[in-house]
């Protein structure tokens, strides 16, 4: 069973949640090239390891939140409220191997 740590409700069964997707930066609407739109719409990192995602607590408090999950073990390392995470910063922190801050705080947004 996979436990998803909702920042409001604590750890709950994954069936209560909807996986919204890997955090992806939206390009500037007015000036984006077709390649940038392709990247935004279709390309994901799809790593076998830690990844930053948005989840939705569909059958609970209905919050959208950010979380860091390991895609091989499905273990969560941290999750945070606060609307939009800033995906590029968060992903950069991840790629750079920045160590986990305490649970509940976003990775350097």
């Amino acid at each position, binding site marked *: 069973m996979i436990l998803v740590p909702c920042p409001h409700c604590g750890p709950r069964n994954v069936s209560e949640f909807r996986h919204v997707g890997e955090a992806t930066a939206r390009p500037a609407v007015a000036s984006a090239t077709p390649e940038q739109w392709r990247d935004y719409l279709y390309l994901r990192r799809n790593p*076998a390891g830690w990844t930053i995602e948005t989840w939705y607590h569909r059958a609970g408090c209905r919050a959208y939140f950010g979380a860091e999950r390991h895609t091989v073990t499905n273990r969560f390392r941290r999750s945070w409220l606060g609307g939009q995470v800033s995906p590029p910063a968060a992903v950069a922190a991840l790629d750079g191997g920045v160590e986990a801050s305490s649970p509940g705080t976003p990775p350097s947004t």
Partner: protein
Amino acid sequence: MAPEGIRLLGRQRDGWRRPSRYSAFGLVRHGLGRAEWPRAWQEHDLSSGYDVVIVGGGVHGLATAYYLAANHGITNVAVIDKGYIGGGGSGRNTAIIRSNYLTPEGVRFYDRSVKLYESLSADLNFNVMFSQRGHLTLAHNDGSLRTMRWRAEVNKLEGIDSEVIGPEDIKRLVPFMDVSTDTRYPILGALYHPPGGIIRHDAVVWGYARGADARGVHIHQNTELVGIETVGDRVVGALTNRGRIATPVIVNCTAGWATLVADMVGVRLPIVTHPLQAAVTEPVKPFLGPVVVSGTLHVYVSQTDRGELVFGASTDPYPSYSMRGSLDFTEELAGHVLELMPSIAQLRVLRQWAGLCDITPDFSPVMGVTPVGGFFVDVGWGTYGFKAGPVAGEAMAELLATGTTPENIAGFDLARFAEGRLVGEKGAAAVGH
């Protein structure tokens, strides 16, 4: 470039011999004698160079190797797999084969695969047990009925046996099905596709492996690709856990792991990896003829030649590289199957398992060339790629041998995602397998 001599040396070293043909007579002779059956494919030392290195020993990689050798005489080829052949989706799928897709291109493509599967046992001298028992996709609402009518008409124009049938005909084909109108999702009709069916997936993998091996292809199990060497923007070598291989061509046939391999050369693929689960019951007497699929109920079921019921559902709703089964899956599956066939409530589930699926945005594969010279892909096979193994292998082999992309896979190119040419196959590929 072609290190032909290296392969021949390797052969002598291994004492390679062409395997004897399998036959009824051979079976009797072997039964009387004490000799062990010869191995179906050989182990080799890793050569220092190959003309083509195929990464991934599933049906796609092995079929590509087989058709390279059989159709084009290119045999200085290695298929490497980080585990054992058929250890990926090719040994974990529910083996449904059909060609009743939605777009004319899709229908022709999958029909070619069905045709290749029909003669595969004879071609490979290996019984793949293709059982064309018919395929039913149920409609529970007007929307699906409309898509099915559309599919049936496209199918018929392409010469494929496919028709929409009503509840009485469904009941005749599957007497155990609850076609009453007082269920939660009443069955309004179905798309019936008589040539569809199931196959013994392991036999397909082993048959292609044996056929490729007999023609000189090297199959290396427990051999993981860990890096790709390039000069300029061309492939020059494959780095593995067993050493370096010089090669001008690498073909990525790694399905759920496809992006990890493409990352090695900086090629980005529109693929996300999702687990897909399946389950099998204890065997019972044959009672279920056709394969039954319900998109609305997210479930499909078939009965194997051994009598087991094989169930599948939709993918796990989040990306993952984990192949663990979940209780959520079994619970939902059981509920949905019993809505269709309440009478099987006493059957016990023996096993459940998961495999990794490489999901693309348009439920169609990504095949052909990439921006890196010599780096080819045959990926994005999602939940439906086993049925395409033969035709994909045939087409990829042609591309590698001739340098020209065959017409039947041209629409599956990687460039379509930047150019807004997505394939409209979702209606027929998303759930149905």
